[in-house]
């Protein structure tokens, strides 16, 4: 592949869709040149340098990058939990300054994001804060449906900490969906789940995304997962983060664990992304020295 130039010199991603070009199908999520630093006083680190990409309605976008590249920080910005230092961040046409309605987050640490004093069912109900047009009975019915959708029928009255990791994450997903979200942000949701359950959960996420018409942004360190699930892959650089590549995924949907993963297009894409990430590690090493 040859020596990769320093990452800052890579031109803006050609696949990014500018809203002006396709006004009819404006992206649900639009990220333009955002940056973010963390820390206080003398210890300020620039985590995100300049990141731009978009997500169309119904799209599944995976975000990958070398470890420590600020993927989680990016997600926190998208969720409105952090405010960006510069650039524009729009969801559904409006600027994001605080957690917007219609965006749900599934956190990596499911055991701590679910409330341990509430049952699974009540945790799902907890997600319905912003719903004002349903009476309590309808809400309960919806919660029940969601629990069944994620495959947890029968576990309504037990507690999150009584369930396995994958099951807890499913409760968290149900809670996110309960909020009538349109955009689902997933922060390495399957990183803490065992490998066997991971495959099931990947297919479950894809089904749910389709069934509930969700746009998804999945942050992950697992390249296989990123390629398997996505319609588009955004590859990030090391800190300060920029977008190194924005690649469309042409694999057919619905995906299949066996067929898709043996598809040459899949393998080619996987190869490309892994090489990109690897070279960044090497590139960064020469930069630091």
């Amino acid at each position, binding site marked *: 592949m040859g020596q990769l130039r320093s990452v800052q010199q890579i031109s803006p991603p050609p696949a990014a869709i500018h809203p002006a070009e396709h006004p009819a199908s404006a992206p649900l999520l639009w990220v333009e040149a955002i940056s973010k630093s963390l820390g206080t006083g003398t210890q300020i680190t620039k985590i995100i340098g300049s990141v731009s990409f978009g997500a169309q309605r119904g799209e599944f976008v995976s975000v990958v990058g070398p470890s420590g590249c600020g993927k989680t920080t990016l997600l*926190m910005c998208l969720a409105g939990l952090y405010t960006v230092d510069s650039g524009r961040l729009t969801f559904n046409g409006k600027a994001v300054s605080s957690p917007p309605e219609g965006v749900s*987050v599934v*956190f990596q640490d499911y055991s701590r994001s679910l409330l341990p004093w509430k049952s699974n069912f009540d945790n799902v109900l907890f997600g319905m804060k912003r719903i004002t047009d349903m009476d309590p009975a309808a809400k309960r019915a919806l919660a029940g449906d969601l629990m069944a959708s994620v495959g947890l029928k029968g576990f309504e009255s037990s*507690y999150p900490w009584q369930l396995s990791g994958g099951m807890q994450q499913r409760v968290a997903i149900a809670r996110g969906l309960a909020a009538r979200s349109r955009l689902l942000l997933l922060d390495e949701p399957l990183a803490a789940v065992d490998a066997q359950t991971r495959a099931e959960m990947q297919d479950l996420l894809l089904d749910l995304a389709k069934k509930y018409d969700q746009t998804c942004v999945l942050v992950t360190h697992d390249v296989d997962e990123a390629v398997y699930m996505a319609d588009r892959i955004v590859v990030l650089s090391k800190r300060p983060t920029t977008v190194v590549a924005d690649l469309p995924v042409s694999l057919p949907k619905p995906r299949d664990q066996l067929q898709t993963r043996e598809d040459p297009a899949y393998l080619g894409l996987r190869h490309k992304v892994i090489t990109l990430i690897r070279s960044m590690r090497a590139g960064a090493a020469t930069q630091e020295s």
Partner: protein
Amino acid sequence: MKPWMKKSTGIVLFLLAWEIVARSGFVPRTYFPPVTQILLAGRDMLTSGELLEAEGKTLFRALSGLLLTIAFGVGSALLAARYALVARMWAPVVEIMRSIPPAALVPLAIFALGLTPKLFIGIVVFAGFSTVYLTALNALTNTEPVQINAARTLGYTRNEMLFRVRLPAAWPEIFTGVRVAAGAALIASIASEMLAGKDGLGFMLFDTAFSMRTKEMFAVMLAAALNGILFNQLVVWTRRPLAGWQDKLNAQGDAR
């Protein structure tokens, strides 16, 4: 072995050891009466009614004081957790309160309030307030960040998060403070009774000690300890609906 059998073994052995040492003649009888004599003296005081009367007074003061302490302590902590300025404003005053032994205030308080229930309950509240307040404030401010972030993304306001996420999550830790405060409440009640010299278990303790009625003294101590047990059991019962989930969660972790 049934749980209660396990529990009593330790105590029974301890009492047995005491009885043997007391009767062996190694220690002077007046200072170290055998368990049996203590229990007899206790029974006498019970039947005469003086023990129950004293106990009732002490318990009432400690209990009402503790309830007030929890109400004020948690209430103030909620306010301070919500408004950082309030927390900063109160911080030195709370520190000062914490550093003054309740007993040291008794002489002053007697001047101001006289030998009324207000005196004793006031001392009790003073004794426990800072502990409950500080523990609660600490628990409320150190909520698991992921939980806060989850609630924020779901659209809860800061006030709602305070009552629906922070407070429920804080109860287990608050109760460690309440346990300490309960101990402080009983200490304060008995200490103020010792100093005020009016009635209650504290007064009885010093009275029996000074008149060298050691059997009665130990019996009163036993009564005080039993009071304490009763008190703690009340705290445990109150804890269960609010913080019982934490124990079950831990049990889960051990079981796996």
